[in-house]
């Protein structure tokens, strides 16, 4: 795929909503053209919970996520490099995005010790000490070979305030510069900085203004979706998008519930990721307009409809809720089947949003 300029990514804005800040774009990456707004399913360890890449292609998924923390541990960057990168390893020829491994800092906080140098973890797999520096994170991400890579940021939970939050914000900027310096493949992989600052508008503004000074291809908005109050969350999102340049994509990390997706698209975000659709499939839950169906529940025992009569996915074309109810309680095949539906659901939602933006009918959609 041809890419313009030196960032391995170019964004073409097709349409803007006249009422909200929503935009519909085409993002061109080395491995794929991605229509935005886009939802990126998460394939943590180099696989999307039982799906083969062909199934994702058939759902017209253009980009998915891999997780640097996990892949850096197993199979490790050396093996991935020998395999020709994660694309070749997992047989996925479209776009990939890797996170930095930093989010695990928040989730494994009692095991992590953060210094200016980097983050010390104790691996939950075998207890060995790991040090993740900005340089190391970029090195692993260079080996993985994703189209978009993330800076290592000093992530703090959105409930944190005061000195720690300010320290994290400044450190994130210093770590960005170290990441940019360490990046070995800038024309093949686009590095995104991450706007931090928690729920503090002043810190967030200062952070964004600093990040914009660096010459990068896109931006991520981080440090949110950690259980904060919705109104605070949305306020920080819209503040961030106001500050970030129009002509570059905005990636809101960790957001994937339908309501949040719609609101944040309206607030000017283009890219989203979340483990929720794939994770909930593993527990036998299918996504529908009204929320989710817990198919393990006995109420579905004689329900012979598909999950969603309007859904064109292979799950809904072939299976009834009643049979999925039985399968979900015993067989791993159900995971693959439900994951297909949940990913299809998310992608259909995004496609519908995008069409409505292009037709300037987004407010009706909402």
């Amino acid at each position, binding site marked *: 795929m041809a890419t313009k300029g030196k960032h391995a990514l170019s964004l073409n804005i097709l349409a803007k909503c006249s009422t909200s800040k929503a935009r519909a774009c085409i993002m061109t990456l080395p491995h794929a053209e991605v229509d935005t707004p886009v939802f990126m399913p998460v394939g943590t*360890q*180099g696989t999307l919970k039982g799906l083969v890449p062909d*199934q994702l292609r058939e759902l017209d998924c253009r980009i998915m996520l891999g997780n640097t923390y996990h892949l850096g541990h197993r199979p490790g960057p050396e093996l991935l490099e020998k395999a020709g990168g994660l694309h070749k390893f997992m047989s996925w020829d479209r776009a990939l995005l890797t996170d930095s491994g930093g989010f695990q800092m928040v989730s494994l906080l009692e095991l992590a010790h953060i210094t200016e140098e980097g983050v010390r973890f104790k691996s939950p797999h075998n207890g060995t000490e790991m040090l993740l520096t900005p340089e190391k994170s970029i090195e692993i991400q260079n080996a993985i070979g994703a189209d978009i890579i993330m800076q290592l940021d000093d992530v703090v939970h959105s409930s944190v305030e005061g000195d720690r939050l300010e320290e994290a914000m400044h450190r994130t900027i210093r770590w960005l510069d170290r990441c940019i310096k360490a990046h070995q493949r800038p024309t093949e992989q686009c590095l995104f900085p991450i706007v931090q600052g928690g729920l503090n508008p002043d810190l967030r503004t200062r952070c964004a203004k600093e990040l914009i000074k660096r010459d990068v291809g896109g931006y991520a908005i981080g440090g949110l979706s950690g259980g904060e109050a919705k109104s605070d969350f949305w306020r920080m999102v819209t503040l961030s998008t106001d500050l970030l340049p129009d002509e570059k994509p905005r990636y809101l990390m960790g957001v994937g519930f339908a309501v949040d997706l719609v609101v944040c698209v309206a607030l000017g975000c283009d890219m989203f990721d979340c483990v929720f659709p794939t994770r909930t499939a593993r527990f036998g839950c299918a996504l529908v307009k009204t929320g989710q169906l817990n198919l393990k529940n006995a109420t579905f025992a004689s329900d012979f409809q598909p999950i969603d009569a309007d859904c064109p996915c292979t*799950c809904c074309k072939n299976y009834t809720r*009643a049979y999925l109810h039985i399968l979900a309680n015993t067989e791993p*095949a159900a995971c693959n*089947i439900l994951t297909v539906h949940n990913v299809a659901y998310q992608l259909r939602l995004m496609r519908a949003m995008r069409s409505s933006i292009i037709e300037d009918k987004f407010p009706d959609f909402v």
Partner: protein
Amino acid sequence: MKFSVEKVVGGGRLGSILPGGRHEASVIETPMCTLFTKVGSAPHLGYEMLKRVSNIPDVATMSLGGLAAHHESVCKFGKGLGNFTALKSNIIFTTLHDASSAVTSGKNDRNGVAVWGKGGKFKMDPSLYVKVQEAFRPDWFQALSDGDTDRDTGKKRLVKSVNNTLDFLDSTLQLLKESEILRDSSLIGAIEGGFDEEERQRSARETSARPVHGFLIEGFEKGHSGLDLFSLENFSSLLTKTLSCLPEDKPRIMETAWSPLQVVKAFQLGIDVFSSVYPYMLTQKGQALVADYTIPPKSPSANLESEKSEDSSPPHSGSVIDLNGKSNFEDFRPVLPGCDCYCCSNFSRSYIHHLLNTSELLAYVLLMIHNFHQYFHFFCCLRNSAREGTLEDLQTSLELQNSCSCHTS
């Protein structure tokens, strides 16, 4: 269902089955295997993924164990088990027990038989059994039978199991006279008797006297036991003697988990229809079939390479490889070079090893595709070999390929 022998090959038969039932299906050649399913679906493979496997058997075996408890739902559904499970174009053969697991002993009596599923025990007398089958509408169905025996079972219990099975068969036949729904379904009689020659032959003779369409020979182990029946010195002669009491023009079915080599042996004793549970058992262990079934073997490099493993077992080659082994970490070749299955066409040993190592479901999806593909391919080769008179060569080739392996079957 109609079966006819086209050609006798030693002790085995090349045959053809006109499946009957709901389908206008074309002739199926034997020896054949059926598609093994768990709770009505191919293990790890939904409808979409199953389509990626070549040469799927026409007949899908579904055990009542995982499904019988849901018969009321399936009855309400009203279109039978094949439609319910999205395997609508397959001929559905219902057996009693899941061929991949052991069956809990001691729960059968002269009133009925216990099958096992997620919810535990489901006991059926002939009346409930027929009700369940009417909800399922199978094309072929195993008669209710008491196969709770193995080589340690005493004579008294063996006699009971044969008697119970015959009584259930007779009660079932009586009930079936009134069943409009099951009119076109083919009843398969079960042959019992454990390891007692007299009981085996009695069971065979008596069952043959009833109007059944085929025979399922069971009762050598209690479900899947992991025992290699061919390692027991009297097994082959016992099976031969049992089959000699059965009519030639009806198929002989066995649900045992058998490797290709064991299938070749069982075929030569007279078995026509096999289960494909064996590739599933391999998949669950992270193992893959890599033998060459062509005569002479085409790809010496694939099957005679030696593999060093970390543990103390000898380097093994031949029919089966273990993708868990650390030697796969940097091995970017497909599981079986030359195999054109979906797994080998797209993924490497290294990737599958990674998936197993990280407990990812996709490992089993890919291995199941490969192992089914290879097992179904083996059956094509078996039929060709029988036709061309090269069975002995096939058996020798398989024995050679197994010889250094940790699998001695």
